[in-house]
């Protein structure tokens, strides 16, 4: 029979698995349906039972959550390779509810273009905190967490690592240096590769693929990172569930995992390296996870997910211009004050910083279950939608006002430094 | 034979709020060759387009062979029309333009070749068959438009100034051919023309249209000799009109008081007009003209006048002669070598009482 796999993964990866699996299982054909995550979810949802593809294979955990919530996934615990660990760092490899399973690992980090950094005489950043420095102004790219589940995890990692308030301050400072917040996660590594951006906050395999393809780029995992699984799941109402399970099992088997080391794929396996033959110098996920300072709390992440992405969009994605302007003014004021300190100026600058880099939602608020509950409700309810859009509108207005005020204060401060 | 009668019953049409045709009542007999005359903008084209099905009347009935065809779409009417602006298809050759209607009628290739060839010969364009309309002169284009329509032998043929861009010779020849064709096929034909001679020579009957109103319908001689009103008198041929009043009618004379000229004692016509305002109409070529000195015969009424201008028109010369306060036109046959009256010459004009018409409208 034919196993239909719906996936957002690049062709190199899917083709490699397709060939290897077909060779290992004569008589079973693999049909790859390549769609982006949104299209995949829509496609599966709209097909009648019995006509759906068999396997969903993608990075973003949120897509799987959505499919699960529509009862479009079907547990298949028997395919899980028991040799794999239960958790990577603090992150459970498989869905606690047993609907989808980690098949490979990926970590978020910093990618940079060496030529670009050289041309702009910039040092190589190592940690998230490096990115707040003024010299990186206008050189950083990130994709929006509302568009990319993995970016959301990165943001959440920072928030959990630094604490809500401090985390937002750092995040906003980094974002003030951003050149762009892209809507496609792929745009970030792509932009770094071709030199449009100097630095990108990206998922490791995309950066590594660039590096192995000969681009002048490099990648590092900051100490505060999360290693998260890419998932695979069996779709409910699949045409060909039995053979599909075979395919899923294959991807998690030793030969299946070994494929991940291919330079064009460049992903981290879930199996311990003792069972595989990793190339020399290949990053070890367990090590990265161990190094990481964060104890990632999946539940917390899940709870405040809608708040975080919405807040991020209102404060950063849609207000990037204003945030950039404020940050620029702050950097300039800081530089000026450093050369000629001025007490009043310092005060104003501090005020500006606090205005620009403070989250509009307090740490208490996010812990308030009612507040969180509001974001869980369906936006199709007019009243809810009204409340939510009212909230978003308020954030948006406030963010704009704050950034504007911060810019003015910083300029004032800079004026005082003369 | 393909004869069809055409009848318009109380047809009215307006473009927006502008009335263009008003209560047109007209019957054209099967096989008749009917001319439509009228000044520019009087609604002639509109009437033809209405018959062909491109305009819709707001009231009235349009009957062909007694059947109301108001709702029939143009292509089912089998009414051929030659458009005033030719409307040739620029993307087709002359041949294809002409063959168009035959193709629609699924004629055999042979029949088509024969018919198109014949009609192109008829209009004298056989050697232009492979050209496109843009490569033809205006008159040639007009002939293509004509050929295209007559080749399908419609049951009713509408011609909107089909010969206006042709020279006289070709025109005469074409209209003779048209007439022959019409006779041969018994085609009921309605055609619009500005050329009075054309109308008179070819048409069995004709109608004069003015401001959307049918002024008079009749034979050429009928309209020419017995116009119903001033408009027709002036429009069909040239007419001298003396405005004035019939003041008295006796047993054998009639007194007409012409404005600017004074009373005239005239012979009483068979059907004398009513006492009251009227116009006296007569044709310029029916006016005799003599030098002032020469004696006139008694059968005519003689008026003294002064030549104001003289024009040579080929067959005749046309004089404007001032008589009292009015200017009359007089046409005199032209003979080479024989002198013309010069402007300023003193002359006498003789009116033939039998040719005078009294118009009260």
């Amino acid at each position: 029979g034919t196993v239909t796999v719906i996936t957002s993964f690049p062709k190199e990866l899917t083709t490699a698995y397709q060939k290897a699996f077909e060779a290992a299982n004569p008589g079973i054909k693999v049909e790859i349906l390549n769609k982006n995550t949104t299209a995949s979810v829509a496609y599966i949802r709209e097909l009648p039972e019995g006509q759906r593809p068999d396997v969903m294979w993608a990075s973003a955990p949120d897509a799987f959550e959505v499919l699960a919530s529509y009862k479009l996934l079907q547990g298949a615990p028997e395919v899980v390779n028991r040799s794999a660990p239960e958790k990577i760092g603090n992150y459970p490899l498989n869905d606690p509810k047993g609907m989808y399973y980690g098949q490979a690992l990926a970590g978020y980090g910093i990618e940079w273009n060496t030529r670009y950094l050289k041309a702009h005489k910039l040092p190589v950043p190592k940690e998230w905190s490096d990115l707040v420095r003024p010299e990186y102004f206008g050189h950083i790219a990130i994709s929006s967490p509302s568009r990319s589940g993995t970016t959301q995890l990165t943001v959440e990692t920072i928030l959990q690592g630094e604490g809500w308030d401090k985390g937002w301050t750092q995040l906003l400072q980094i974002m003030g240096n951003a050149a762009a917040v892209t809507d496609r996660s792929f745009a970030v590594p792509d932009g770094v590769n071709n030199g449009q951006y100097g630095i990108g906050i990206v998922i490791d395999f995309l950066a590594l693929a660039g590096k192995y393809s000969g681009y002048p780029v490099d990648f590092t995992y900051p100490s505060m990172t999360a290693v998260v699984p890419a998932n695979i799941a069996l779709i409910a109402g699949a045409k060909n569930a039995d053979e599909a399970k075979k395919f899923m099992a294959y991807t998690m088997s030793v030969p299946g995992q070994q494929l991940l080391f291919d330079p064009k794929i460049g992903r981290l396996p879930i199996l311990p390296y003792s069972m595989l033959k990793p190339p020399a110098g290949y990053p070890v996920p367990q090590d990265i996870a161990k190094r990481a300072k964060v104890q990632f709390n999946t539940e917390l992440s899940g709870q405040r997910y809608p708040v975080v992405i919405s807040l991020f969009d209102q404060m950063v994605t849609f207000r990037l211009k204003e945030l950039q302007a404020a940050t620029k003014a702050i950097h300039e004021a800081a530089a000026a004050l450093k050369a000629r300190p001025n007490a009043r100026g310092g005060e104003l600058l501090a005020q500006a910083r606090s205005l620009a880099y403070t989250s509009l939602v307090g740490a208490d608020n996010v812990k308030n279950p009612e507040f969180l509950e509001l974001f869980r409700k369906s936006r199709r309810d007019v009243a809810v939608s009204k409340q939510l859009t009212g909230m978003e509108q308020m954030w948006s207005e406030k963010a704009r006002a704050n950034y504007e005020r911060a810019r003015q204060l910083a300029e004032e401060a800079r004026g005082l430094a003369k | 034979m393909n004869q069809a009668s055409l009848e318009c019953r109380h047809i009215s049409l307006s473009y927006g709020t502008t009335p263009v045709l008003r209560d047109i009542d007209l019957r054209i007999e099967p096989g008749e060759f009917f001319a439509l005359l009228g000044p520019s903008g009087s609604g002639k084209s509109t009437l033809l387009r209405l018959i062909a099905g491109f305009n819709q009347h707001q009231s009235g009935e349009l009957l062909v062979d007694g059947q109301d065809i108001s709702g029939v779409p143009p292509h089912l009417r089998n009414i051929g029309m030659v458009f005033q602006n030719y409307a040739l298809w620029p993307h087709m050759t002359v041949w294809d333009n002409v063959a168009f209607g035959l193709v629609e009628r699924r004629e055999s290739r042979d029949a088509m070749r024969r018919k198109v060839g014949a009609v192109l010969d008829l209009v004298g364009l056989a050697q232009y068959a492979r050209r496109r309309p843009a490569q033809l002169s205006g008159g040639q284009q007009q002939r293509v438009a004509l050929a295209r329509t007559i080749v399908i032998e419609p049951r009713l043929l509408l011609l909107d100034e089909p010969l206006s861009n042709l020279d006289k010779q070709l025109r005469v020849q074409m209209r003779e051919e048209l007439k022959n064709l019409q006779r041969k096929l018994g085609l009921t034909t309605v055609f619009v023309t500005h050329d009075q001679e054309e109308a008179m020579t070819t048409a069995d009957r004709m109608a004069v249209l003015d401001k959307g109103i049918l002024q008079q319908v009749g034979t050429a001689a009928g309209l020419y000799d017995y116009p119903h009103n001033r408009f027709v008198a002036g429009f069909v041929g040239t007419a001298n009109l003396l405005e004035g009043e019939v003041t008295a009618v006796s047993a054998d004379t009639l007194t007409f008081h012409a404005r600017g000229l004074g009373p005239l004692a005239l012979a009483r016509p068979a059907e004398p007009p009513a006492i009251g305002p009227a116009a006296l109409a007569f044709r310029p070529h029916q006016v005799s003209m003599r030098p002032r000195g020469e004696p006139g015969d008694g059968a005519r009424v003689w008026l003294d006048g002064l030549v104001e201008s003289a024009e040579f028109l080929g067959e005749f010369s046309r004089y404007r002669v001032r008589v009292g306060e009015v200017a009359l036109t007089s046409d005199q046959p032209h003979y080479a070598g024989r002198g013309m009256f010069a402007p300023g010459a003193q002359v006498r004009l003789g009116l033939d009482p039998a040719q005078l018409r009294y118009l009260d409208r």
Partner: protein
Amino acid sequence: MPATTLQTGARARSPRTLASPGPLIAFGLILAFLLCFLVLPVGTVIYTAFVTETGAPTLGHFGNFFGQLVFRESFFNSLWVALASTFFASVIAVPLAYLTVRFEFRGALLIQTLGVLPLIMPPFVGAVALQLIFGRSGSVNLLLDDWLGFTVPVMDGLVGVTFVESIHYFPFILLNLVAAMRNIDGAMEESALNLGARGLRLFRRVIFPLAMPGYLAGAALVFVKVFDDLGTPLVMGVSNMLAPQAYLRITSVGVDDPLGYVISVIMIGFSILALWLAARVMKGRDYATLQKGGNALQKRRLGRWESLLAYGWILLVLAVVLAPHAGILLMSFAKVWSFSVLPDAYTLEHYATVFSDAGGMIGNTLLYCLLAAGLDVVIGTAIAYLILRTRLPARQWLDWLASAALAIPGLVLAIGYLRLFKGVQLPGSDRLVVQTWVLIMLAYAVRRLPYALRSCMAALQQVHVSLEEAAQSLGASRLSTMRRVMVPLMAGGILAGFVTSFITAAVELSATLVLVSTESQAPMSLGIYLYMQSIAGRGPGAALGVLAVAVVGLGTYFSHRFVERSRAAVQPSSRA
């Protein structure tokens, strides 16, 4: 014959309507098509905008929309960008069209074809290529920085979007304007010359107004397209515009935000408004000049200086608008191209990579797009005819309906298809409709219909009605008149419509992504997308892009050749 007359005469009593069944049937068929493949599918998705969670109708979502700062901003950004792009696109297209149509111009055909190429810019590749050339660290800026010490941020923000949109969509104007200008009777120009007009004034007062249907068709398309365009702002990272806002909200995984659909509805409304305004401008005017045998505009010679100027301008414009294509070409041969003016090294490998896949994809693209574009011009011509040549009530609705497709995100349409045709089997087989390529083709046809429609309308507006009446009076039915007279006369415009539909369908992605149900159905646009989704695949993606451009470009060139040749026959044989 009399028998027919009798029947028809009896049936059609009312004197006002020439009610022959043909137009009614056409009207019905088109309406059914639009209902099945546009209104209903979209309705099943977009009704969300009008209902609450429980399904009760509401306008509350619209209220929510207008309260939002982001949306007001987005609206004005979109409007501004659309207006500016229309303006710049006109600046590019009008001179190109005028110069090549009215003057003897070496390579006029080539220029007109090259002028269409920008449309064939596969999404993603085009943006990437443009970044490589004009981006912050693109070739141009690197050179400028090296030599002069400054950079030009043409690719940033709204300016960037305007720049890209202008050079991407000006062919809409070019194509339609060229077709329209070719339809002008030469005598129109001659009489103006005779009265002392010439050069720019002649153009402004006579030629351009007469070509107005074509220009407006093109400009309206550019405006609406840019207003509704999603791809460009998305890849340029500008989210404060309407289409991205709608997209972001509709596609955020797991969030079913009705505001996304509200935005879609608003975009549809606004697009229709724009088209309606364009139609108002034309209303009551007459543009038909082809009547008395019709001579086309004559080509004239340019003076030495004039031609120098003209060639200079054209080369400049072409250099800018073809930059992305140069970029793609370089990319397809590049090993690595990063932060440098030109690639580091070259290779043919990428072509080898894609070659195995390319055949099937080219075939699919041609199959879907030719069918879709064919369907579009047929429907487009029919709608144009119904609107301009019949008095059917509500015929204008067909236009509005069809044009609404411009504003509908491909994703929405595709989801609507899946939803509407769920479980429906292809007649005569057990295959599901949703798993065949038919839906992909239909989605293309529906989404590109507005292009073909605008062109067909423009073309028909220029044909004098008496040409058609003449055919009818010779016994040609409406259908036959269409086929033998109208369509040949409209050929230029129809071709323009066909080409635009074909080209834009060839690069359509959003609906494709959802609707493709097996690998073997993938058209080139999807192939390119897939390759471009991986770093290592950029080269092969670009190579496939080059193939796409070549295939579609050749198609365009030959169709131009075809029309030009049939036109040459109409031109007078000699002009000294």
